[in-house]
């Protein structure tokens, strides 16, 4: 049976809760976007409940500890039904008392789960590296990204701790939301289509500081000068900086 949830983490957790409540263990959590109607399977639409979700989180924390419980959130951000399914299976196993299952790397679901964790973690690390701020006239630093996975929630604290004394926005154009730090609070923001256009073309909403072009240029010069031509190795270069990230990297434009 398919449990159709709203795509949020709380929604997925609610699926786990309700599967236990109804003793329907062989369900598949899925979102509308991914769901293809199947004549042999029933569907159940799950209404997200924060309360139920938090009970599942506390339950996981009790069984496997806080850090591993958070792995479920990190793997969830991989945004793929197969991973949601593997994570669901593992959560059920843990609640049934099989609490060491996450280290059984001979198990397919565990490998799927740990593989997703590794990829999400790599993307999170890449975003720490590849975010490039541009300064606007009002002093706001803003950056646009299109990460492979939904990793903004995993990097917000990092940027907050690092750039505490400047206000900034990191905007995920693929998922159409961003995080905004106003030097006091972290706020989730959503721009409308017009505003996004402005950010992309830096016209009215954000006008760039005079110095912005100057420093971008210096950075490009530095990038060129620090390269050693005799060691040229484009294959390695591309492995580290795949083409899909170039769009927002001034040194690659």
């Amino acid at each position: 049976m398919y449990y159709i949830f709203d795509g949020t983490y709380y929604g997925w957790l609610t699926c786990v809760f309700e599967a236990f409540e109804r003793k329907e263990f062989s369900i598949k959590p899925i979102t509308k976007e991914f769901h293809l109607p199947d004549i042999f399977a029933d569907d159940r639409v799950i209404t997200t409940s924060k309360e139920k979700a938090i009970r599942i989180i506390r339950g996981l924390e009790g069984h496997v500890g806080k850090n591993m419980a958070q792995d479920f959130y990190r793997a969830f951000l991989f945004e793929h039904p197969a991973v949601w399914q593997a994570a669901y299976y593992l959560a059920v196993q843990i609640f049934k008392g099989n609490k060491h299952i996450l280290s059984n790397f001979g198990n397919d679901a565990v490998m799927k789960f740990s593989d997703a964790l590794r990829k999400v973690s790599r993307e999170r690390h890449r975003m720490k590296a590849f975010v490039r701020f541009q300064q606007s006239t009002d002093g706001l630093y803003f950056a646009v990204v299109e990460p492979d996975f939904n990793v903004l929630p995993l990097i917000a604290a990092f940027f907050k701790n690092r750039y505490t004394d400047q206000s900034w926005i990191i905007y995920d154009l693929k998922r159409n939301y961003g995080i905004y730090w106003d030097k006091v609070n972290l706020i989730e923001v959503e721009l409308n289509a017009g505003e996004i256009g402005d950010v992309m073309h830096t016209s009215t909403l954000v006008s760039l500081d005079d110095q912005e072009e100057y420093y971008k240029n210096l950075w490009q010069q530095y990038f060129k000068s620090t390269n050693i031509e005799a060691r040229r190795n484009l294959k390695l270069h591309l492995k580290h900086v795949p083409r899909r990230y170039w769009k927002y990297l001034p040194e690659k434009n």
Partner: protein
Amino acid sequence: MDRLEEKLKILADAAKYDVSCSSSGSKRKNIGGIGDASSSGICHSYTEDGRCVSLLKILLTNHCIYDCAFCVSRKSNDVQRAAFTVEEVVKLTMNFYRRNYIEGLFLSSGIFKSADYTMERLLKIVKKLRLEERYNGYIHLKTIPGASDEMIREAGLYVDRMSINLEMPTEMGLKLMAPEKDHESVKKPLNFINQEIQAYKQESKLIKHKPTFVPAGQSTQMVIGATPENDFEIMSVADKFYKDYNLKRVYYSGYIPIQNDNSLLPQIGAKPPLIRENRLYQTDWLLRFYGFKLDEILNANFKELDLEIDPKLSWALRNPHLFPIDINTADYKMIIRIPGIGRGSALKIVQARKFGRLHEYQIKKMGIAFNRARHFMICADTPIQLGFATMDSVRGQILHNGASKAKSSITNQMSLFV
């Protein structure tokens, strides 16, 4: 071109032969200002040569009173000279950092006037960043040989890492290229800073909020292929320096020919020894993370690393009596010695086998190089072989099947002599 841009061009170009770009190992926190250190380090970009760009790596100036043959900034070399002001370096660092271009600053310098005079300038920059800009990002500072202990001690209180380069792996090699220099002037400050680090560590156990002193430790660099040392000599020096001075890293930098009249040095056009450099790094890793002793990999009878295959595989082929290893029963320490299995997969194997004996199809999914590893291990379902394939044939099979990154370039290198 703007004057600052011109300086950046000259002084980044002159600094790039220092390969260290690590930004890891420090846990400096943001205290009411800007920046912190990510203890794992972050590479913000990669140059077209595939090297990490983590720090703004520049010289304060490329004016130098020394005339070392291997160095592009040597006194007698006809290159454009430039010098940053203290303010310029601070401005560049802060503006790059605030845009998340870099993880911090790597600051080195040619020696002008005297060692202390140079060190004092570097110190000025570092202090201005920390005290006036309230900058807590990463700083890697070169120790200037011959600078006074007081000056070095003060710098250590503000920076994350310090380094000083051996340049040539042996004293003899160094004397050939830089008669004015010796290894003693490198060992002295390495030793001094190491003792200070250890003393601070002891004290900070007793006092809670003790200031940090070079929290990311020290490193050094050796130039490879400019002078005739063999790999055994090079790694012996590295091994000793790791032990004597608690170094975090030794870097091996394949010599890239620059214009010079020294007939002993490889000339422009000669390819830098990149594969050899890679093999040295692999050896370095085996020593530091895989529990190998140097004499297992290199010794008086085996002085040069095999360029065609990596040093772990080479060691395994020379020690057939230790294989195959049963991954369902062997210690972690032995499993990481299997060619094609790294530390991450070894850890997975040791955890997973508690749930039942592991089969080949399970091992394959754990991210190991199965085609290499299969010659050296036994899984639950590995068929029993009558007699063991000779190591020569194993080597042949691996080289034949594998897409060795070394293969194509080695054939190129060989064909020069045909």
